[in-house]
């Protein structure tokens, strides 16, 4: 149980609500997996969105926009 709680808390960055202690280890780990996957999907969507956005921005403006996005 302690390991499963720790795995979920590592993903959340905070202690889980006390009432979740009724859940089985598998459920806690499933929640942690869902959260990790959601963060990964969001990061991937963002990478793809940034790349796609540069194709929509007019060529003249791409340089300044790219500089803000990537430094």
């Amino acid at each position, binding site marked *: 149980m302690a390991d499963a709680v720790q795995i979920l808390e590592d993903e959340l960055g905070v202690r*889980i609500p006390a009432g979740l202690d009724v859940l089985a280890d598998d*459920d806690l780990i499933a929640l942690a997996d869902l959260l990790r996957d959601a963060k990964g999907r969001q990061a991937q969507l963002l990478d793809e969105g940034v790349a796609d956005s540069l194709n929509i921005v007019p060529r003249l403006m791409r340089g300044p*926009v790219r500089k803000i996005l990537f430094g």
Partner: protein
Amino acid sequence: MSLVQADVEISRLARLLGTGADELGYLRQVQWQDIRDLREQVTLVMFEADRQMLQRVASATRLLPSKLTATVGERAFGPLLSARVTGLLEPSRAVDIADRLPTTFLADLAEQLDPRRASRRSRAGATPPARRDGRLRRPPVRGRAEGGARRRRRRDAAANGLRRRVQGQP
């Protein structure tokens, strides 16, 4: 009542996590207040993840006209990421961009907005609306393809709801 509240919270959490409520059925054995607390923790994590890049995207939009920003949001980022970026924009700028987006896209975006920012703005005071009546500039599209008048009214209501939320109005 608490079972209904639990189902509502499970649905909200499922949407945040990009999964179906059925996948989280095991949470029904947890008190709804604890599911709500978990959902708030997940909200925080998802809105803080990638914050640095999202902030850069929000900064880059200042270089672009609102119409072009709306096009980029709709075609490149989609409703989820556009909602994340919306939370980082000045409310007046967000409203100006929203006025140039299709209502269907706005309705999807509104579902993904950060509720914490909306409530903070609400406490801080409302920003003047872009238009006196606070409604869409764009008239509703006519035709069967749009799904009829009732559907258009629902979309417009969602869009105007978004406008109120980014302006911090109740």
